[in-house]
């Protein structure tokens, strides 16, 4: 691939938290159309790494460089789905779509994550898996160039996992860079970044 497809360069990244070095000398380059799976034991710093990449966590050493402005291109799903229980599935999704400048058919997106018929149910009455699906529905709205997904497969049933796999592969095929944390593997061409096995200092 040509160098202009380069999206992200990470160099000598080091992060400490609560007296512990989470990772050190982390370095990788990610390009458009690649899928990166970040693995590691619980507490290895997967969530922290993603938060550093999207600019939510600023206490680190080293360099994180996005080669074009990140904010307009980013679709970030955090560890918590970001769904408020007082609002219905549709209201939640509409708000994130407006906030993230992501036009698209909200109802069709909810359909795509199997929430047909649940659009007007307050999120308080949805199961954990369904709440995550409300958040995941954003993947079916207008495309973004970078997806950063923290444990997108958590609490999702088999059927949903297959759909999500397909969606991620389709997006990557269209040139989206996908970075996600999970133990689940989307396919063979996925690049792996393993955190951990770092001796405590």
């Amino acid at each position, binding site marked *: 691939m040509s160098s202009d497809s380069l999206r992200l360069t990470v160099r000598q990244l080091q992060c400490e938290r609560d007296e512990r070095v989470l990772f050190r000398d982390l370095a990788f380059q990610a390009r458009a159309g690649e899928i990166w799976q970040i693995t590691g034991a619980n507490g290895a710093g997967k969530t922290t790494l993603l*938060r550093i990449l999207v600019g939510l966590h600023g206490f680190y050493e080293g360099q994180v460089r996005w080669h074009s402005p990140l*904010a307009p291109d980013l679709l970030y799903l955090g560890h918590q789905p970001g769904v*408020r229980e*007082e*609002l219905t599935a549709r209201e939640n999704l509409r708000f994130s779509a407006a906030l993230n400048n992501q036009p698209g058919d909200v109802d069709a997106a909810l359909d795509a994550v199997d929430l047909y018929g649940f659009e007007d149910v307050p999120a308080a009455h949805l199961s954990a898996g369904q709440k995550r699906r409300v958040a995941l529905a954003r993947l079916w709205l207008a495309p973004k160039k970078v997806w950063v997904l923290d444990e997108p497969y958590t609490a999702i049933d088999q059927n949903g996992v297959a759909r999500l796999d397909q969606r991620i592969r389709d997006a990557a095929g269209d040139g989206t860079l996908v970075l996600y944390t999970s133990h689940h593997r989307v396919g063979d061409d996925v690049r792996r970044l393993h955190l951990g096995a770092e001796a405590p200092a």
Partner: protein
Amino acid sequence: MSGPWWATLRRELTLIWRSPADMVQPLFFFMVVVSLFPLGLSPKPELLALVAPGVVWVAALLAVMLSLDGLFRRDQESGALDQMLTAPVVSVLPVSAKLLAHWLLTGLPLALMAPLLGYMMQLPVPALATLTYSVLLGTPTLTVIGAIGAALTVGLNRGGILLALLILPLYVPVLVFGAGVVRAAVDGSPTQGLLAVLGALLALALSLGPLAVAMGLRISAGD
């Protein structure tokens, strides 16, 4: 560009509307606290009229402060706050919409309730209008300043009492001029100058406050 701002305003209004306790509790607190004073001090009208400006103002101030603890907490716990901070908008925009919605449904009712409580506290009727204006001009300032504290303590346990320690000293000027203008009205002195001071504090809080709140939220998120 107004998309995210309006969307946030609508969402916040819906949220508060759906959990009316958030709206009613500060108002109820305001009424109960003010009602305690005649019982604790003495029901003598002259005495009550003397302390009324301060009592109503301190109660309003505490009511605003108590309403702020949950301002960002549930968004933080649900992960919605991270969504707001990573969205392609200047984070001051959703923050200011949030603050406006919060004031509309908590601060504004306090201002509307204030003349009634002032009357119960034996304030002379001509001073009640000034009391209302002062609470109307003062509560948004309190909301904005308090939101800075709420943003800084959002991820912390026992944020409530800490919030009080941080922001009550910052509330002093609003209290001084808020109660002061009501006292001036009772004494028959001119009040425009003091209302202008409350307005100046409000303008200052509105112009710099949301920036500080947005920065506080980023700091609390880990930046």
